[in-house]
């Protein structure tokens, strides 16, 4: 009996030892990565030697190099899944949409704007089409791409492969990009290659999933995910290769978005942990790309962010509403937030190209933006001057041409009203770091109030989330938006603003917006240049959201266009440069989009399907009474 026990103990021990000495399993998966990385590196070298040995002045030579660039891009596409997640800034040296970009991935809002140059393969392909091609420039672009690629062999990258965690986070970003950029030509200069490149990515991902499952059998990509993924491959292979005819709508609704939900479930089930800044804005709880909690965006609760009690939150909102309509926030007690962000007009001012200045005579330099969905921007204001919603409020209140007040005086006036002072003092216990009521409390109540109108969904969201019916023209409009009309390369899915996955930066574009409809001169507004003076940022503006756009006229930073049709015509002709204006740094291609009248109507229909079903509120009946008598004749919403 004893002998038996001993033997079984020995067998058990041997089993344990041999098990622990066995390859921990990540080998096959890591091997797959290294194999693909080697193939990419070899192809880069082949491209380099092709450039060196080919006569680029002939069209045959240029064609030969083009082919090599495409082969290299195809190899890169196999790595996209990892590259973009594991080292996003280095990725841009290999492949990026523009030769020079500022702060496209801003991890820390306090950081100074930084410049990124490069764009490797994209730039090389574009460069080949130029008239005087210099071999050295081409070589240096490819060399840059090769140097950048070496980063992906570093220990800091490969150490991720020891566990399964990075995999599901890479996959999340991959799926988000399938919805937002991979089918739109965001970084693909040759539109004929967009769908072929997509097919490569999908089929490679499928092989990679298999390798991963062999290496990590305890946390596998689930069978229902794999089955749906195979269907997505079939769909993309059987769809037309022309990205304008490709059915983006169905691809996202029936494949990408459900796959995203399944991946989120795996992230939860496998308790995936992030060690990357790439994930900091993404929400593990979101079950659809088109749910508003997909990313955190701005902190609308401000200083009250630790308040969870719904009754207390409702109290703050109530006070926020009174403040929103209260002209006490201005220097002359005549102007309120609601003066220019009219709640009856989608929180913007549709009557003027720009709102009136404090003097009630001149117009402000820029159009009042709608406050709806403002919280889904990374940076605030058209020039991205502010990093938080609360800072924007402070700036507007004290701006002499806007509300003409002064923080301290306004705070005193507000606290002279019993209703306000009582409410804010009661809330102090939630903000121990601020023992006295300060302007941060005021600003936070305001942002919390208006942010509640951003929680609503549009018919388009309902179609994506719940398969609700949607007008066929709107669907066709979306497919155009994602392709030929080139809207989605700046207005990214799902917010249709300038924030693309992983939702940690706001993009700025130079469109060449004219001063007047006659296109005689460019708008003199320097835009982003005021904040970050650089050649590329001159006249650049933060990309706004297309949501509710049917209701937020007039359009562009200076409100120059009154109708959506005018805006589409502006883009159709290639922006300012396309209309004959001299714009040195336009980021929008200046050639025509060749949109037909029907296509333009479909685009308008799609944009209409982004009107959110918002429940607006009536203004408050009256404003809080102040101890200062002179303040008590102020009107709800002010006199503007």
């Amino acid at each position: 009996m004893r002998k038996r026990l001993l033997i079984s103990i020995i067998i058990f021990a041997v089993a344990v030892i041999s098990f622990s000495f066995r390859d921990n399993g990540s080998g096959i998966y890591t091997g797959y990565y290294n194999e693909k990385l080697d193939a990419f590196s070899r192809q880069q070298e082949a491209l380099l030697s092709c450039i060196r040995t080919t006569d680029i002045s002939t069209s045959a030579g240029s064609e030969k190099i083009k082919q090599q660039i495409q082969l290299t891009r195809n190899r890169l596409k196999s790595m996209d899944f990892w590259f973009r997640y594991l080292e996003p800034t280095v990725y841009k040296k290999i492949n990026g949409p523009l030769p020079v970009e500022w702060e496209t991935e801003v991890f820390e809002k306090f950081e100074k704007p930084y410049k990124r140059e490069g764009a490797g393969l994209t730039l090389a392909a574009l460069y080949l089409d130029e008239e005087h091609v210099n071999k050295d420039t081409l070589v240096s672009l490819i060399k840059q791409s090769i140097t950048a690629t070496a980063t992906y062999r570093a220990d800091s990258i490969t150490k991720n492969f020891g566990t399964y965690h990075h995999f599901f986070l890479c996959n999340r970003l991959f799926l988000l990009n399938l919805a937002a950029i991979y089918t739109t030509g965001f970084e693909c200069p040759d539109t004929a290659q967009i769908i072929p490149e997509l097919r490569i990515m999908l089929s490679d991902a499928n092989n990679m999933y298999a390798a991963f499952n062999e290496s990590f059998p305890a946390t596998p990509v689930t069978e229902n995910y794999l089955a749906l993924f195979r269907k997505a491959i079939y769909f993309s292979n059987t769809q037309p290769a022309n990205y304008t005819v490709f059915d983006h709508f169905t691809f996202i609704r029936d494949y990408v978005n459900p796959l995203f939900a399944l991946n989120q479930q795996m992230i939860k089930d496998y308790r995936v942990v992030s060690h990357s800044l790439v994930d900091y804005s993404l929400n593990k709880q979101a079950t659809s790309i088109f749910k508003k909690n997909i990313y955190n965006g701005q902190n609308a609760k401000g200083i009250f962010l630790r308040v969870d009690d719904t009754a207390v939150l409702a109290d703050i909102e109530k006070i926020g509403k009174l403040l929103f309509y209260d002209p006490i926030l201005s220097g002359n007690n005549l102007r309120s937030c609601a003066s220019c962000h009219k709640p009856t007009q989608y929180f913007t001012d549709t009557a003027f190209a720009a709102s009136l200045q404090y003097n009630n005579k001149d117009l402000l330099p820029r159009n009042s933006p709608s406050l709806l969905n403002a919280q889904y921007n990374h940076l605030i204001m058209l020039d991205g001057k502010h990093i938080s919603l609360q800072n924007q409020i402070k700036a507007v209140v004290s701006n002499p041409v806007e509300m003409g007040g002064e923080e301290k005086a306004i705070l005193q006036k507000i606290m002279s009203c019993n209703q306000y002072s009582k409410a804010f003092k009661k809330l102090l216990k939630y903000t121990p770091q601020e023992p006295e009521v300060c302007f941060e409390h005021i600003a936070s109540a305001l942002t919390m109030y208006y942010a509640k109108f951003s929680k609503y969904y549009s018919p388009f969201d309902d179609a994506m989330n719940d398969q609700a019916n949607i007008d066929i023209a709107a669907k066709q409009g979306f497919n155009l938006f994602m392709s030929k009309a080139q809207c989605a390369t700046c207005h990214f899915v799902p917010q249709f603003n300038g924030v693309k996955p992983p939702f940690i930066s706001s993009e700025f574009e130079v469109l060449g917006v004219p001063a007047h409809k006659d296109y005689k001169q460019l708008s003199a507004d320097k835009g982003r240049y005021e904040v970050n003076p650089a050649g590329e940022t001159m006249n650049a503006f933060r990309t706004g959201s297309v949501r509710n756009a049917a209701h937020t006229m007039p359009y562009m930073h200076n409100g120059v266009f009154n109708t959506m049709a005018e805006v589409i015509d502006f883009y159709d002709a290639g922006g300012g440069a396309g209309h004959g204006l001299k714009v040195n740094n336009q980021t929008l291609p200046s050639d025509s989009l060749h949109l037909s009248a029907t296509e333009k109507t479909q685009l308008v229909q799609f944009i209409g399907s982004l009107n959110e079903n918002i429940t607006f509120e009536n203004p408050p009946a009256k404003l809080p009474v102040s101890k200062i008598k002179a303040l008590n004749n102020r009107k709800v919403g002010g006199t503007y």
Partner: protein
Amino acid sequence: MKRAIAVTIILSGILGLQCFAQKKQKVTYEFPEQMSPAVQAEFAKLCDKGKILYDLNCAQCHNTKIKGKEVIPDFTQEKLIGYELRVSNQQHEADMPDTKVTAEELGLITTFLTYKKKNEPSVK
């Protein structure tokens, strides 16, 4: 019996006082000499706010008790790198997203930890 009550009262009194004393316990800051007194005063205000936010968000895991005294550990500058803190470990990922600690608050906390007077070598 009466004695027992008296002892309890005295004991709880001492305990209460101790709690009070602990609450009052002031952290001191060390600012660089080149910093003007006016700037130092401003920074001290920020540090005070940072201390409260630290107590609220960090103290529970990071503070240690040495001889009954709460000790805030010394963090090196490498440990106090802005947003990296948010994902530096599993606990931080769950407890410190933007929705729980804002960027501004994170700044105040790191300011406080940067200028907090370093602990005596005996209480490492």
